[in-house]
């Protein structure tokens, strides 16, 4: 991006610098808070803290977890676990992204589609991924497809809501102008509604990426031999507790990284949103 933007009013940048600490201080603070969390975990598990309502007696220590992570890292199974999980989340997420974006734009644009589609979707939305497991097994011919379906349900609704919100926020005057310039209905959707809704869609896609990972353990409870969710769940049943935490952290890190990747891609395809001024 070129940075030829008109200068930002001084008051704005002043206000921003007053509320936001410098880059170095920010990194230090973030690192310190992570270290503090780690220390609390270590102390609670090392001393087998028992607070009555919650007990850390059976929770692995950071050191045990690190050893478990090291052995997983050296295991040939790790690659299988990763590729299985990535492909499940990938397929579920990709199909949700396409379907939810198209559906959301149509719902946001047409009152008829909204009346026709939104009520059943609103009924399905609060149903947690776990509750879908039996039906997912019954509905799909292979367990692989059932698992993809579960990650799909996780990603679908955040993306749908983002797209609906985005489409509703499109300025009707832009649509009117496009039509006066000869745009057909399809061209209005492609040239005006889709880019106009981009901010909402990208926000939905980033949240949906996280919730798709969120549902991975649930999905991989169905069956399988490989997958990080499966590894986590299996570690519980065979009482290899440190591995549970390794699996949990791996899912957390992968989810966070892929959400960041989606955000970055979103920024690259919507350069006009990063400009100063009233980009609508």
């Amino acid at each position, binding site marked *: 991006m070129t940075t030829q933007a008109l200068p930002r009013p001084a008051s704005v940048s002043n206000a921003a610098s007053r509320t936001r600490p410098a880059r170095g201080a920010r990194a230090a603070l973030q690192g310190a808070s992570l270290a503090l969390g780690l220390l609390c975990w270590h102390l609670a598990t090392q001393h087998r803290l028992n607070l009555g309502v919650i007990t850390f007696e059976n929770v692995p220590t950071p050191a045990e977890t690190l050893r478990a992570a090291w052995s997983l890292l050296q295991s040939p199974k790790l690659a299988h676990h990763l590729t299985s999980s990535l492909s499940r989340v990938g397929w579920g997420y990709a199909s949700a992204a396409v379907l939810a974006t198209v559906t959301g734009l149509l719902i946001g644009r047409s009152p008829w589609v909204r009346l026709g589609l939104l009520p059943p979707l609103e009924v399905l939305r609060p149903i947690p991924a776990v509750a879908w497991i039996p039906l997912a097994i019954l509905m799909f011919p292979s367990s692989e497809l059932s698992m993809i379906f579960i990650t799909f349900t996780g990603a679908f609704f955040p993306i749908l809501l983002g797209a609906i919100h985005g489409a509703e926020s499109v300025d009707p*005057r832009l649509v*009117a102008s496009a039509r*006066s*310039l000869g745009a057909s209905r399809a061209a209005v959707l492609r040239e005006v509604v889709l880019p106009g809704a981009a901010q909402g869609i990208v926000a939905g896609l980033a949240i949906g990426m996280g919730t798709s990972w969120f549902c991975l353990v649930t999905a991989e409870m169905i069956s399988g031999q490989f997958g990080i969710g499966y590894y986590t769940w299996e570690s519980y049943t065979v009482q290899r507790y440190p591995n549970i935490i390794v699996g949990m952290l791996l899912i957390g890190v992968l989810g966070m990284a892929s959400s960041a990747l989606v955000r970055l891609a979103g920024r690259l395809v919507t350069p*006009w949103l990063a400009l*100063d001024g009233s980009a609508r």
Partner: protein
Amino acid sequence: MSARDPFARPGGVALEALSVALGSGAQRFTAVRDVSVSIAPGEFVCILGPSGCGKSTLLGVLAGHIVPAGGRATLDGVRIDGPHPDRGIVFQQHTLFPWRKTLDNVAFGLKMRGVGKQERHQRGRALLERVGLADFADRYPSQLSGGMQQRAEIARAMITGPRILLMDEPFGALDAQTRSMMQALLLDVWSESRPTVVFVTHDIDEALFLADRILVMSPGPGTVIEDMRVPFARPRERGETRDLVTEPEFIAIKRHLLALLRHRQPALPAPRLSPLGDGPSSLPSTSAP
């Protein structure tokens, strides 16, 4: 400038007993009642009137964004029944697409016609040069000043060679100096390709400087109460040596128009209507002259 289709007819407008009702249910009201006007091809017409007099609504009917309740509107004898690139529209607040650079915004109408990218850009650049934006082709709209945005907006509406240009207080949000520069530019562009122009304003000076003919509208419901020719020869001067605004005839006509508008002010503040017919618009209403 883009060449006009030689077979296209020139842009005569006829409104016959036109009425428009806006809103629904209990909120439904008559915005325009029984307006009959005919506008010659190439004529520059200003519609003058206070907020809520239905002037923007009338523009919306001509653009094809509002369906009249009664009567009919035609362009060269063909009933207007939807938006069409033959009828370009320019809003008070620009409607450039924030996600397209200025050049692609201006060339949008050509893209919708299936014109190839190279020719699109070539004609877009020529038009940008014409309105003084040659150096800003690669900027996004939010990187332009208000006056530049309106120049790009006008260029975009002109690129397909419309028979009629509909303008809804296009310079209303600009400062006085930029506004008079924009008026001169508009007259330049208009005199080259001579589309019919219907220009909505509540600024008497602006109407007298631009128009061949002024239609004065009064609110509640909107009707045309005066249809006058503007007697000044073109080009109209607005300089230090000679200024139209200070001539006795100009002042006399201005006084007459002021009196017309003053007596027709609505008792209650009227809603600001938009050419999209969606009732009071979200734009802040500026005070009538």
